[in-house]
């Protein structure tokens, strides 16, 4: 079913998708029971499509039966795997953890041996070297860039083969530091490396085409806190940019110590419109992680889950489990309270917080029910899990926090402001009357709809009053989450970004900000019509991301290509100052509405048009229509600020 679902997203018709899946029907096998992982590794078949210098292969028709939820959005620490052979991961002892570990490791080594045999018999140009790399994988460290990249590819493909989703790539420039290679050759190797990672794009894509989780983290700081970049940082950005493919995507960690030339390079890359890089501000994020409870060296070495949620390197925290919807308290108020008694704004806010608290309790209740699939693979590579001989799925990692996301904060803030003005200041309606219009989806209430829709939207404006109002709501959120300890022994964190601004808005009732039923929620920290970039950035800078609030806070903006290309210095200044002022993360779509409309109407003329969706890049043509329309609408709103 999953294969059909994924194939159907790119097939011309559902029948074509079905035919494609059925043509492989005999190969499809789901392995359950004990040693299911070992069986998959034993039976997985290999292919050499697209392989010249490396082998990269995943038998998408063989998988492990997943009973609970499998850990996703994770990145194995590739550095250790490069520095020692796989046999290093064998464990002494007869306990269950060690036995499971050693059994899986046996299977991996057998799998790598089979892979070497396959390559030996293949026509792959670089087969002799690949075979020697695979043989050396057991006991030797990787000696050069080519061998290191091959090793990463093998470990990567094993994760996909085990049924993991959204498999990250980690700090690639950092983990390859020390491998000296001539630039032309390095670029050639990286080009094939990234192309191969793109090989199973359709099947790797999760919620939408492009949502693969293949995120490359570049730049940043060393564990000791030194500013880090090397030759591979820029080379990888360039290579991905030149490939003009949406995936893998780049997250670039930046800090105040970076040189001006590096900022200019970033803006040039952004202006090429491949959706990358997402810019992540170390100066803010590391400090928030430390005050949350991460050790500084782990915070310095942070990576992110599939999109933007910061996570300590070398652990397997689940960071994007569910989205909290800030409009939900309004629904609860409607259902549970006597609306006639809401006679002051303070009374409304009291009820809003009361219902937010109840709603959060239902979310934490849900978190308690989660059962994670045992994960001997990730446990094998987790130092802490090995030390305490406890699977990462049951809390074996050094950090075991849960991350949740939030949607519709902008809609909620604008709603509350509209209510304050129309109900309690101008007294044009009672709360009950306005709520009744909303619940009717404004049917026969067009005047009220226009009044709400055309009201000055407060979200995104850099007024102290607005920012402190948002901070007050997030402060309450973290207070309500304060006592929660998840079943793995960790806490919970959240942020103002989410992939669910369309998924969770389908059929969701209308809201007081003039949003009709089913219309999308606002995206991350973004602005509506007529708000200048500087204003949005000031607004985002004044939001409080401390405490539990650092789990992804992305300022998401649209830019007309000509504007950024003709004003590189101004955009350097904009981004640099925004980050210095306290913005956590930034991403942009450098595209104009006219191009998007043309591409929607004439998809064949724009086969390679790439856009940024919630935290990944995708071909515009492959997106569902509602995502295309929302991007067009947002581009139009952005352009209105300049006309």
């Amino acid at each position, binding site marked *: 079913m999953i294969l059909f679902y994924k194939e159907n997203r790119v097939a011309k018709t559902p029948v074509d998708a079905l035919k494609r899946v059925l043509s492989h029907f005999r190969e499809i096998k789901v392995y359950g029971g004990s040693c299911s992982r070992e069986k998959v590794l034993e039976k997985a078949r290999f292919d050499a499509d697209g392989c010249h210098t490396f082998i990269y292969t995943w038998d998408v028709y063989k998988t492990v039966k997943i009973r609970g939820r499998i850990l996703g959005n994770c990145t194995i620490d590739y550095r250790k795997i490069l520095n020692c052979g796989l046999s290093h991961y064998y464990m002494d002892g007869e306990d269950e953890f060690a036995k499971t570990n050693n059994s899986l490791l046996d299977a991996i080594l057998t799998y790598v041996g089979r892979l070497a045999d396959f390559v030996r018999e293949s026509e792959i140009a670089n087969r002799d070297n690949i075979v020697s790399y695979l043989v050396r994988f057991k006991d030797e460290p990787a000696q050069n860039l080519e061998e290191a990249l091959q090793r990463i590819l093998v470990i990567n493909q094993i994760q996909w083969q085990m049924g993991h989703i959204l498999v990250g790539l980690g700090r690639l420039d950092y983990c390859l530091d020390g491998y000296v290679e001539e630039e032309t050759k390095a670029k050639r190797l990286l080009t094939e490396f990234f192309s191969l990672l793109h090989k199973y794009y359709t099947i790797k894509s999760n919620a939408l085409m492009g949502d693969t989780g293949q995120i490359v983290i570049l730049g940043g700081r060393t564990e000791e806190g030194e500013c880090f970049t090397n030759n591979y940082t820029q080379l990888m950005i360039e290579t991905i940019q030149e490939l003009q493919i949406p995936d893998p995507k780049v997250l670039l960690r930046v800090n105040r110590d970076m040189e001006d030339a590096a900022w200019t390079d970033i803006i040039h890359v952004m202006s090429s419109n491949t959706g990358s890089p997402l810019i992540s501000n170390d100066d803010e994020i590391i400090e928030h992680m430390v005050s949350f409870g991460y050790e500084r060296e782990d915070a310095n070495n942070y990576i992110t889950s599939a999109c933007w949620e910061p996570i300590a390197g070398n652990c397997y925290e689940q960071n994007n489990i569910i989205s909290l919807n800030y409009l939900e308290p309004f629904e609860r108020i409607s259902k549970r309270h006597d609306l006639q008694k809401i006679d002051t704004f303070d009374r409304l806010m009291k009820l809003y917080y009361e219902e937010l608290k109840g709603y959060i309790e239902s979310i934490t209740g849900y978190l308690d029910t989660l059962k994670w699939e045992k994960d001997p693979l990730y446990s094998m590579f987790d130092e802490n899990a090995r030390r305490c001989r406890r699977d990462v799925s049951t809390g074996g990692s050094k950090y075991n926090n849960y991350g949740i996301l939030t949607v519709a904060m902008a809609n909620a803030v604008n709603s509350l402001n509209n209510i304050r003005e129309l109900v309690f200041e101008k007294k044009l309606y009672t709360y009950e009357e306005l709520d009744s219009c909303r619940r009717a989806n404004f049917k026969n209430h067009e005047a009220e709809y226009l009044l709400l829709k055309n009201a000055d939207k407060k979200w995104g404006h850099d007024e102290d009053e607005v920012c402190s109002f948002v901070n007050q709501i997030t402060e309450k959120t973290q207070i309500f989450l304060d006592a929660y300890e998840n079943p793995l022994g960790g806490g919970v964190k959240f942020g103002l970004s989410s992939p669910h601004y369309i998924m969770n808005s389908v059929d969701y009732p209308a809201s007081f900000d003039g949003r009709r039923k089913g219309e999308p929620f606002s995206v991350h920290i973004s602005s509506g019509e007529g708000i*200048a*970039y*500087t*204003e949005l950035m000031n607004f985002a800078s004044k939001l409080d991301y401390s405490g539990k609030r650092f789990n992804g806070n992305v300022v998401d903006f649209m830019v007309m290509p000509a504007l950024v290309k*003709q004003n590189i210095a*101004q955009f350097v*200044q*904009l981004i640099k*100052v925004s980050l210095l*002022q306290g913005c956590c993360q930034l991403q942009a779509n450098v595209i104009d509405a006219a191009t998007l409309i043309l591409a929607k109407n004439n998809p064949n003329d724009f086969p390679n048009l790439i856009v940024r969706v919630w935290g990944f890049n995708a071909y515009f043509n492959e997106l569902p229509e509602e995502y295309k329309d929302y991007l067009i609408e947002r581009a139009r709103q952005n352009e209105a600020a300049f006309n």
Partner: protein
Amino acid sequence: MKLRLTSIQRFSVHDGPGIRTTLFAKGCSIRCPWCANPENLSHEIQKYCTESGVWKQYGEDYSIEQVFDICMKDKNFYGADGGITASGGEALLQAKPLAELFKRLKEEQIGCCLETSLYAPEKNLELLRNYLDYIYVDMKVLDEERADDILNAPLQLYEKNLKYLFSAFPREKICIRIPLVDEMTFTEKNINVISEHLKNFQPSKCEIFSVHNLGSAKYATLNLAYHKFRKITEEELLKVKGYLQKQSGNTCFVIH
């Protein structure tokens, strides 16, 4: 003392160096038929109805304090190059409150720029003299037989102010902007006169551009007749650029 503005545009990148906040003054002393901002012509506050039926108004009176506070919001973004640009309409017509504002901004080390047609009393320019870091000056219709009629203003005033400007400010602070409009500014005779002026005054920089036709919706809200002009081609722009550079020795840029 108030400033009457139609809008305050933050993150403005077309009205001077760096990141700027541009103040669009309401009220103008000339009537360019190609004007893209007709809401800035009259000094009076004008009410209008949007397409969605909402009543709004062009123009609002701001205290100096209010404008100063808005300008200060982006202080960190201005850096060494950016700052505030007074545009319009004709910002010089509100020179007194503008001088007050610029004085305060200069105390904060924020750069101040003026975009002007120079159709304003000379004393107004004097009022701003101490505060301006950069000045954009329009060069439109200089053909004395047609200027007064097309712009509905005396060319003499412009010429006088232009002389004053170049005597009061170093040429490095002055950029000439030439909108090319078919049969208006884009005539052989007018280009020749412009060329003579450039040769005489030697500004540091000269920008030429074709006017766009983006203002039609605003004309409709004001019940004003809208004149559409042929877009000057890239080839024509480059030809004028080459000619002006050769004749005057000035550095010219085509901007879009």
